[in-house]
């Protein structure tokens, strides 16, 4: 009887479930592998050929890049001289000509501090102070006073207004939002009810209506002889709505922190406020940052709604510019320009929020 013993090692076989395909083969399989995929691919190609070439022609090849409105009317494509001509108006609105450097500086400061705040390494007490300094200096630059010639609030428009309302509302609304979130978690029934009522009322009613209500109702609650400029009324409305949204974002963060942490902190003798500010809150904020960034995106887009109370932000400035009799009929170009601007900023922020979210889940 002979026994057979394998003397040579068997060469490794490729995993049958994980075929190593070349990139071309892999794409071929996904695009045209099954009848369904062929159908989907053909459908997509048809849609793309219907949409992309005309869009490209309108945007670029048949567009007018410089010239007069008459030349634009003769051409089939987009009219970009309109944007060039009105660019300064889009940015500055009605801001006084000789003071425009102040608006520019305010824009730079607001974009700069937002950029810095996005770097996790800078998160800390210093950033809070920097934010406060930035907000104070932006208000000073835009409104004037204290050495600068004052600017009437009705003159503030265009990009500075959009940024002022969207980027400062979050840090300004944060303390109120935190109070509401704490109130909602409070063991005192009265505080809980008030917080829930405020949060739900402002999240439940449309921002347009809140703005309108603020601009109509706030004067009723001011003592005789005191007036509040429209800008401040709008700011107040945005602030309280932002606070309601922030409270909801923070609530999610609070729910994640295990109860044992504050019990442990209590047992080593920390006072309640110490537990909140030193143990719970830092973690809650870290957890809520993606949600807070989403709120910034939301407000960046929704600032455009102040058009209903007659203020002109970036989008409203574009709409106003397209009513110029010399350049009538080019509002679509203006809207495309606005869309590109908003998309760049919001998409970047959304990607950032997504990255933070992923990072948090990996930890």
């Amino acid at each position, binding site marked *: 009887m002979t026994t057979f013993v394998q003397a040579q090692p068997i060469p490794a076989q490729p995993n049958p479930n994980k075929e190593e395909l070349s990139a071309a083969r892999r794409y071929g399989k996904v695009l045209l592998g099954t009848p369904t995929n062929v159908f989907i691919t053909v459908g*997509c190609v048809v849609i793309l050929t219907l949409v992309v070439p005309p869009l490209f022609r309108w945007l670029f090849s048949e567009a007018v890049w410089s010239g007069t409105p008459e030349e634009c009317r003769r051409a089939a494509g987009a009219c970009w001289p309109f944007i060039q001509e009105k660019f300064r108006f889009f940015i500055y609105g009605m801001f006084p000509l000789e003071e425009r450097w102040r608006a520019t500086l305010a824009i730079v400061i607001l974009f700069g501090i937002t950029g810095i705040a996005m770097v996790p390494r800078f998160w800390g007490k210093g950033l809070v102070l920097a934010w406060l300094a930035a907000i104070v200096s932006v208000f000073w630059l835009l409104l004037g006073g204290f050495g600068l010639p004052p600017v009437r609030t009705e003159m503030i428009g265009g990009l500075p207004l959009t940024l002022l309302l969207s980027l400062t509302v979050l840090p300004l609304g944060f303390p109120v939002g935190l109070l509401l979130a704490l109130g909602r978690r409070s063991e005192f029934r009265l505080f809980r009810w008030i917080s829930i009522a405020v949060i739900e009322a402002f999240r439940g009613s449309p921002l347009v209506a809140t703005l*309108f209500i603020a601009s*109509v109702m706030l*004067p009723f609650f*001011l003592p005789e002889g005191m007036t509040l400029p429209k800008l401040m009324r709008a700011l107040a409305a945005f602030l309280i709505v932002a606070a309601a949204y922030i409270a909801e974002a923070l609530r999610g963060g609070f729910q994640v922190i295990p109860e044992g942490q504050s019990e442990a902190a209590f047992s080593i003798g920390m006072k309640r406020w110490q537990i909140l500010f030193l143990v719970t809150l830092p973690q809650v904020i870290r957890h809520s940052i993606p949600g807070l960034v989403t709120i910034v995106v939301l407000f960046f*887009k929704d600032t455009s709604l102040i058009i209903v109370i007659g203020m002109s932000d970036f*989008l409203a400035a574009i709409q106003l510019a397209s009513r110029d009799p010399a350049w009538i009929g080019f509002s679509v170009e203006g809207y495309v320009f*606005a869309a590109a601007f908003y998309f760049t900023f919001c998409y970047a922020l959304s990607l950032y929020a997504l990255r933070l979210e992923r990072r948090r889940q990996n930890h």
Partner: protein
Amino acid sequence: MLDVTWRKAGLDEAPSTTATGLLPPPPPSLLGPALWRTRRGRAVLWQIFGAVALFVVVLVFTRIMYANLVRQNLNLGLDFLNREAGIDIAESIIPYAPDDSLGWMILVGAANTLRVAIIACLLSTVIGVVVGVMRVSENPLLKLVTGAYVNLARNTPQLLQILFWYTLLLELPVVRRALSLGDTIFLSQRGLQVPALEFAGNSAGLAVAAAAAIALFLLLAPLWRSIFGRTPHLVTRLVLALITFVAVAIFAGTFTLSPPVRGTFNFTGGMTLTPEFVALTVAQSLYAGAFIAELVRGGIEGVHKGQREAAGSLGLSNLQMLRLVVVPQALLAIVPSVTTQYISVIKNSSLAIAIGFPDFFWALSTTINFSGHSIEGVAIMVGGYLLPTLLAATLMNRFNKKLVERGQR
């Protein structure tokens, strides 16, 4: 352990143990420990303090408001709702004339808002589900197309989208050169012209149709049971009965289908959907649809991969796997967030004001400007918007609870 015991006892400091022996402990008070020494007592004190503060704030502001009202010679009351509106409204689904009251005008606005919101909710759900499922596909081209739509719609202001669609619609050809779909649906500067159902006044046909529908509703259950072996769902029965009703009514000549006919300057027959309405509905549906698509995608991707593999190894087909394994679990995750989307559709209809569509918000702001009764008008506005919001939230929560229960069974 010790800390927890005294915390449970309601004291906030551990009882001092060092001084024992020197002095006898003070006798316990007959009323128990002082109010501010216990957690419960402090809770009561804090709440009393809060209530007083709230009362003072409300009192101060009410006084200021009252003084302002007196100074401006305004008086509160809802009488102004009976005043004649005197404004014409371009479109309404309930009858309206300029000499109707302001209150009626507000109702017309509310009906318009609801019409937009309901259609936009339905359309955005369809768009969202279809695009969301497509987003999970492996096909890179499909991913590119749907991704472009979703990101573009989510990252630009809704107001901008509404204005964009409105401007595009106004740049469409005039009636004579309207784009048409088989000569039954027209798209022109005047909006969308679609065939309409018109009541022809034949009430006998209506009765027959109603009888047929009721008969079907009653007979369907036993018939269905004898064929398929199980009772049909109530919704199925209702939908089938409704379809029967409409079909029989059209067949019996109660309703006639009136197709639009192209004239030189305008259409005759059919139903006109104005550019404002179309722009608002399209923009809302596309905007909310993109958000719902992301929710659907998140829900599907959230179902664990192992679940699909398990379903595959049990021999379920692809469709069965979707229907029995993936969708029920994905729905559980999606429903609460989709509710929020529906609520924002109702809320965001207020952007109609930017293109002059006569909605609820427009009607109220016009009323306030006309009558000067801002306090009452604002109260109606807040109530009007919170009512559907709360209603939708309650309904969807109930649905959600049902889903959760089914999941746990």
